[in-house]
């Protein structure tokens, strides 16, 4: 019953991990906690992105657009419909708004694969970026929109400053969303739908022959992926307190690709690990040196050349080596 034993071990590790995250605010300083929250938002974004890359075989270079859609949904409601500015409206709005955008863009994009798909997603995200920048009177242009603290279920955080809000209630709120997103994605990629999109990825013609509607399945994957990005964007807007068009710029989308690769896109947990590590890496690089792009660039090149499996992939190799060296311990 080795299978059951490892399964129990895994469940135990997962429970420990969740307890660790719940207790984290007691241990680490608030500054790091806010940074971690940013990383957790990117983790949701990375999960959605990897549904396309790992499971559908499509490399999106424009995922920032859906992240921006979620973040701007929050910002615009705050600006134009303050009476609706409530958490229980904002989060669904972020998801729905980005899902609609992803449904429209996805309809166009899923007709193509490989580099055409990447270029098309990039061009569409730049269309969003250019629109956000140019429509100054609607979207605030490059200044962006400020995002305040919304009331939650009638409870207004009056007079509360942002760090206080982020350290307290919001951390657990966000953690809850992360757990739900991870669980849903875990179930999704193991569902018949998940198996179908993987079949499409591996062999499009064969998948079509056995009756899978290739484009429709890709479109659904695109839509779910976009909705994840929108949820992440909405959640992130409260952490940052400000949304700008840069979120839709292709450089941000490139960073999303980087995070996922850093963690390892071939594993389910890769994007989550990558997003959190990347957030800390970037912030320390930015605050530690003027030449942070140099550091990010070099680590990026190093990972592509030396560690194609990412951090998680590297860890797996290390563990296997350790096991091979100590066979009696398994």
């Amino acid at each position, binding site marked *: 019953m080795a299978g059951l034993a490892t399964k129990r071990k895994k469940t135990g590790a997962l429970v420990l991990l969740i307890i660790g995250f719940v207790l984290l605010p007691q241990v680490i300083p608030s500054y790091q906690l806010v940074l971690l929250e940013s990383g957790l938002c990117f983790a949701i974004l990375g999960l959605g992105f990897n549904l396309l890359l790992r499971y559908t075989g499509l490399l999106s270079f424009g995922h920032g657009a859906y992240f921006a859609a979620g973040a701007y949904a929050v910002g615009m409601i705050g600006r134009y419909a303050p009476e609706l500015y409530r958490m229980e409206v904002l989060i669904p709005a972020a998801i729905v708004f980005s899902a609609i955008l992803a449904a429209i863009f996805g309809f166009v994009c899923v007709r193509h694969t490989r580099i055409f798909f990447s270029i098309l997603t990039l*061009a569409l995200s730049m*269309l969003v970026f*250019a629109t956000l920048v140019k429509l100054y009177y609607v979207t605030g242009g490059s200044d962006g929109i400020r995002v305040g603290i919304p009331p939650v279920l009638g409870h207004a955080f009056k007079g509360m400053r942002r760090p206080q809000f982020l350290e307290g209630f919001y951390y657990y709120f966000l953690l809850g969303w992360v757990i739900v997103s991870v669980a849903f994605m875990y179930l999704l990629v193991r569902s018949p739908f998940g198996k179908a999109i993987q079949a499409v990825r591996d062999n499009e013609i064969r998948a079509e022959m056995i009756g899978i509607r290739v484009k429709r399945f890709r479109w659904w994957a695109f839509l779910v992926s976009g909705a994840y990005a929108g949820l992440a964007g909405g959640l992130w807007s409260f952490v940052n307190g400000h949304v700008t068009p840069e979120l839709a710029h292709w450089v941000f989308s490139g960073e999303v690709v980087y995070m996922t690769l850093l963690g390892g896109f071939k594993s389910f947990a890769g994007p989550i690990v990558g997003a959190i590590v990347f957030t800390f890496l970037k912030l320390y690089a930015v605050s530690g040196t003027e030449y942070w*792009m*140099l550091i990010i660039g070099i680590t990026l090149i190093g990972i592509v050349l030396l560690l*194609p499996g990412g951090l998680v992939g590297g860890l797996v190799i290390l563990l296997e080596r350790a096991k091979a060296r100590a066979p009696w311990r398994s």
Partner: protein
Amino acid sequence: MVLYILNGLYFGAFLFLTSLGLTIILGVMGILNLAHGSLFALGAFMAAWTIGLLATGPPSTALILAIICSMALTAAVGFLLERSLIKPIIRRPLEYQLLITFGALLLMEDVIKLVWGGEARYASAPFDSMGRANLLGLEYPWYFVFVMALTALAGAAVWVVMARTRAGIMLRAIAMDRDMAEAMGIPIKRLSSLAFMLGASMAGLAGALMVPTSPALLGIGMEPLIMAFIVVVIGGMGSLKGAVVGSLLVGQARSFGVGFLPELEMPILFLIAVLILIGRPQGMFGKG
């Protein structure tokens, strides 16, 4: 009206030079070089620096020397990029290829900052010294005419290389079928480097030509990259003809867009690109 068309042509000239390099590299190597804009920036900074050094001499000599230096430098950097970064990942999946050029972009932006500092560099002496021409009843700077002529010359030179020389024929063979070309004994590694150097030097030339009209700034290569990107998408990947037609089209669209709908000029360009991609994913002159 004439002014808009002339401006469109002038703008199209830059687009053509930048997208030419991008499309050569894409066609021959199958790699979308995201660091292409940084090569443009490198050319711009090198030219500004050279013109600044030679400020005491005649501006025309300074300009010519600056162009030569920029092209030499970007070709050399292109060679290094190809040998150190592109060669190891040429057979790897798409995500690695895109990411490694993205890494090169970040790296080069900061190297430029490290070498030339963060301030803007002005080098408008060649533009000022050339004066204005009287063209179709319009006052038009000679420098713009010079840029268009030089671009036409560079385009013709690349066409001759690709269509008439042995190296060009071999490059096109690689673009058609890399494995087959290798099996036929074409020196694929050397030619890949050559293609990269050629493409990079075109970006350097574009950067150098830009500097007399607008200062070299950090991040100056971002917009040309995206624009060249649209041109390549519209024209067709790896197609020389596509680069010409695409640049002319985008140049005019942009010139008239700036004139009549300044708010929506960028979104319109992206919209055109998207519409063309929907109808013809391989672009106007691309092969399936």
